């Protein structure tokens, strides 16, 4: 359907349809973010012997995040006097927009996908790299030292970890011979890439945590050192935008891992085919999200310099070795 739309001639009806679809996806994503946050709080709560939200919206606190968002919307919008106003305002948008854009190429099922472009994987990685601008700009525009340090940390970290991220996924690309996400999924019919590329998966997963700025790589906003890092001066909905970007990336990254390493919407065994692909996708996706939350509950934070060392001296060489190994295997056995 979308293929046809993409090829049809532009017009208002066309625009309307796209806009509507985009809005639907946004709502889905926002729905995920709402309950993703709730899930994170609940899981963290139970792991930490607490209950988590349990007042707003029944005993599971189902409306807690909704209430939080409403509160953020109603909050006073504070812009520090000494801040660089235009940049300060635009930074959250810059941070958020790419997180939403990357979802366009994500094949949730074989049918539900917005843009089936040939270099989907490359697109994802390239666009997601833009978010760091938002963080650096926000940190710099705040005219706050903690924010600046946080922004700088974010820049250094994102750039450093993007490289092992890309390198680790090269093994998958080598085996598939394509950057198209649909093809990567269909290629996994006889074995997920997590089994064929275990080293690549581990490196990718670690780098993805760093990309997401989550514990143990949450240095840009490390609460205990930099108070809140790059968004320390933000409040109200601008702050919510940063948070939104973070959780949409969680969504996107979990989806990407599902697609690239866990076989996307495919059932693990042929005889389980009767269960729809969407369910399989959701299941795998949820497991990945849970592992992210689990790690957050468990690990302490890295130190900035050790983080860089780890990225450049450990992950990158491993990723390169993985490429070499994969190339060797491919030329010998495939």
């Amino acid at each position, binding site marked *: 359907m979308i293929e046809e739309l993409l090829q049809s001639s532009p017009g208002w009806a066309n625009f309307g349809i796209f806009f509507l679809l985009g809005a639907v996806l946004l709502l889905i994503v926002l729905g995920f973010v709402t309950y993703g946050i709730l899930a994170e709080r609940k899981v*963290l709560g139970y*792991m*930490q*012997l*607490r209950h988590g939200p349990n007042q707003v919206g029944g005993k599971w606190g189902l409306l807690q995040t909704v209430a939080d968002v409403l509160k953020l919307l109603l909050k006073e919008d504070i812009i520090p006097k000494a801040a660089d106003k235009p940049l300060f305002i635009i930074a959250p948008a810059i941070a958020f927009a790419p997180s939403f854009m990357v979802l366009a190429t994500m094949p949730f099922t074989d049918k539900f996908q917005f843009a089936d472009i040939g270099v989907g994987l490359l697109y994802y990685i390239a666009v997601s790299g833009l978010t760091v601008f938002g963080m650096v700009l926000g940190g710099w525009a705040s005219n706050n*030292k*903690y924010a600046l*340090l946080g922004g700088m940390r974010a820049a250094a970290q994102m750039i450093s970890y993007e490289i092992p991220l890309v390198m680790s996924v090269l093994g998958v690309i080598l085996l598939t011979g394509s950057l198209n996400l649909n093809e990567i999924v269909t290629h996994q019919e006889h074995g997920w890439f997590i089994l064929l590329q275990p080293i690549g998966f581990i490196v990718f997963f670690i780098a993805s945590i760093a990309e997401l700025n989550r*514990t*143990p790589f*949450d*240095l840009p906003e*490390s*609460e*205990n*050192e*930099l*108070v809140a890092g790059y968004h320390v001066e933000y409040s109200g909905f601008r702050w919510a935008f940063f948070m939104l970007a973070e959780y949409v990336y969680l969504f996107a990254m979990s989806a990407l891992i599902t697609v690239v390493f866990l076989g996307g919407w495919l059932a693990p065994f042929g005889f389980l085919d009767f269960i729809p692909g969407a369910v399989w996708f959701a299941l795998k996706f949820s497991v990945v999200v849970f592992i992210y939350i689990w790690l*957050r*509950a*468990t*690990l*302490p*934070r*890295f*130190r*900035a*310099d*050790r983080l860089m060392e780890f990225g450049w001296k450990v992950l990158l060489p491993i990723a390169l070795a993985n490429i070499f190994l994969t190339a060797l295997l491919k030329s010998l056995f495939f």
Partner: protein
Amino acid sequence: MIRTEEMILNVGPQHPSTHGVFRLVVKIDGEIITEAKPVIGYLHRGTEKLAEDLQYTQIIPYTDRMDYLSSMTNNYILCHAVETMMGIEVPERADFLRVIAMELNRVASHLVAWGTYILDLGATSPFIYAFRDREMIINMLNELSGARLTFNYMRVGGVKWDAPEGWIEKVRDFVPYMRGQLKGFHDLVSGNEIFLDRVKGIGRYTKEDAINYSLSGPNLRCTGVKWDLRKDEPYSIYNRFEFDVPTSEEGDCLARYHLRLAEIEQSLNILEQAVAQFPGEGPILAKVPKIIKAPKGEAFVRIESPRGEIGCYIASDGKKEPYRLKFRRPSFYNLQILPKLLKGENIANMIAILGAIDIVLGEVDG
């Protein structure tokens, strides 16, 4: 050419990891600290001045508020000073109650130190586990004294309240439970690579430095000085119990971390023995005059609080109020070495080092 500039960063007085209203003005080059200057006094309440107009018993609640994580030892140091001056012998049962209360409080205090330290390093869960166990202690002390934090439990000559029915048994049951928990704490954190990376070899100082800077408690023992006033200048009935003074030669944050956990273990040993030997009955308050008047003269006594050597100096002119009261507050002395340790470290290490010194701002500021 790129020109770099030093930046002055104000850490605190409102900051998640300063454990209170403590301010640290650091000059940083990138993230490397070139100079650090602690600024304190935000919590100064003039306890010593206030005490000059108060009777000795009335001062006890003020001591609660110095090191609010370990109020029992603070209570004790004041009572102990007055008792030393007046030559009061504390009844045995009161001594036992005091020791049990102090050691429970020591465990609670070290649990907070442990939990918040890991929290400072970015892991959130251990903090909550520590607080769960601390909560049990706090509840026990609440049953004993009627307060959860500012106990106001001890009096000159003994303690205010006797142990309620079944309380001693509770303490007895707590000891093995806590031992199991300690093992869990080690499993959870002590071997974690990221954690070790943050603390091993960080904030290291030598024995000579530690002594020169008047450090005490785990901060001193982590350099290999085997010194614990409970053992070396026994007060109360500590000479009746067998326990170790854990030390370490490393002198880094990891050593301090391990010492605190080891001290919890030793406190549990003391608790176990104290509970076993707890006298069935007896008075809990010595016969002391209604209005306590320390004899003319002066005294300085010191005991071991969880944070180190807490001391109390009383100059008395024979009246019912002290002429001059002075507390030697371990956090205040321990914090002095901070600027020296921070030089050349980065900001993440700053948090690790500050956390490992384990200060309580109420005590730093008096």
